[in-house]
């Protein structure tokens, strides 16, 4: 028992501090991918509900691609493919050495995947907003952008929040893949610790436990957000 505590301690003998930095990296990566994914997802949803067929088709290609590819493959495509592509472009300019950072590659890949799922969530939320809302806003003389910002978006957030909450939990789990391209996240540190201490079960259980705790914290956060968005309903 004592040995286990030493292994988990924060100090030179223990892996506590390393794993803590892993947790910070996992959370940072997920939080960094979120805004990009949300913005692209919203743009995609707007494109999908547009009356212009070519715009819809372009958005559909995007979702088909990034929902059909395994997340791990998307990550490799972005990491290695991006590396080769940027290297080629830069070698024309004369820069010889350039390295795509694993963090950025992970962020981009996760946002690509997140946004293609988020676009569906936004799209179904758009369907929940009645046409009368647009007509009412038009009657008040609001411009299209104002309608979107003041009338539609607040309702959209409320309607899409449950689905987006699920997507956030998936995103949090998907961050574990960046350990494969050498990012020091929870899984990678657990792996290192497991190898050095010969206690794989202990450290991978700990990793699972940390992910569970993160999921529980997120669920609380999401449900309080949902409560906040439903403040207007409570007065009825």
């Amino acid at each position, binding site marked *: 028992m004592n040995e286990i505590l030493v292994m988990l301690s924060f100090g030179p003998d223990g892996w506590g501090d390393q794993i803590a930095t892993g947790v910070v990296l996992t959370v940072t990566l997920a939080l960094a991918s979120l805004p990009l994914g949300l913005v692209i997802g919203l743009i995609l949803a707007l494109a999908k509900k547009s009356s212009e067929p070519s715009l819809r088709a372009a958005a559909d290609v995007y979702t088909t691609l990034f929902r*059909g590819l395994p997340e791990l493959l998307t990550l490799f495509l972005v990491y290695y493919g991006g590396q080769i592509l940027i290297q080629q472009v830069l070698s024309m300019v004369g820069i010889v050495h350039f390295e795509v950072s694993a963090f950025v590659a992970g962020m981009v890949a996760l946002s690509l995947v997140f946004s293609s799922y988020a676009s569906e969530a936004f799209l179904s939320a758009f369907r929940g907003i009645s046409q009368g809302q647009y007509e009412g806003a038009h009657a008040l003389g609001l411009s299209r952008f104002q309608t979107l910002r003041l009338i539609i978006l607040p309702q959209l957030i409320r309607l899409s929040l449950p689905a987006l909450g699920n997507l956030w939990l998936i995103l949090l789990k998907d961050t574990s893949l960046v350990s494969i391209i050498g990012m020091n996240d929870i899984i990678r540190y657990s792996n290192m610790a497991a190898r050095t201490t010969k206690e794989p079960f202990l450290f991978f259980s700990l990793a699972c436990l940390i992910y569970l705790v993160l999921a529980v914290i997120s669920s609380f956060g999401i449900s309080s957000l949902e409560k906040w968005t439903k403040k207007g309903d409570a007065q009825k």
Partner: protein
Amino acid sequence: MTNSTAETTASAPSEVTIEKPAPPKRRWTKSRIVGHLLMALWCAAGFGIIYFLMVRNNVSFNLNYSDSFPWITSVDLSAEPRFLERYGMKLIDGFIITLKLVGLSLLIGALMSLPLTAMRMSKIKVFSAISYAYVYFFRGTPMLAQVFLIYYGAGSFTDELRDIGLWWFFRDAWNCAVLAFTFNTSAYQTEILRGSIENVPKGQWEAADAVGLPRWLIFWKIILPQALIVSLRPYGNEIILMIKGSAIVSIITILDLMGETRRAFSRTYDFQAYVWAAIMYLVMVETLRRIWNRLENRLTRHLKR
């Protein structure tokens, strides 16, 4: 309302043929320009990938000209697909391994999800708590962590596993992968099954009860068919999620499609490995999605009007 009736009464008796107005010309609106630009970008990317594959496989066209009429006498097409010659079959082997892994774990997972759902919906608190914890654990942690926990984690119990004679099972990466995936998908399938059974209105139970059917018959003949129709879509999504998720088993040295791809890439540094893998995964997922849509349309045709 009055307006439309007036129109119909006015137009009905008259025998004047009404010419349809010409459809308005589609103008180049902003969204149309953007849409076409984006589609052009996708097409360019697609052609770029095809060009990349052609260059890597040394595909070349040779046009033979002549002075007289048909001008072009023949077209020679030559290619040296060295990569595909060496690794093409391996990728297909990997593809089959992926299908085997997913198929096997989905099947065993489906069998496991039945008792788990029964436990989850049971009135006995302990049972439903155990099932809930199981589902929460496997849905709340990354599949990668689960695979590591089972494959590497078994190493912590080498002696114990040897004693009960199960070490041979956990020593093999394939068994561990199937086990981890089965556990994972059974948790998801439990959730799907529970959701769809609870989705069947209570009146169905009550009506069947009133007719005097025994409970197992009500469940088997009335509740389950309705529940399965509701659960068709989530089941399809789960299969797709499993296919995509199965890519991570390449990390524990299983040579599935992703594993073969990674091996080919690490030996040749030829990026086309990943391009072929992407194409194969996309074809796999897209075919399945289409088949599933057909199936769903077919099975729910009595619900459509």
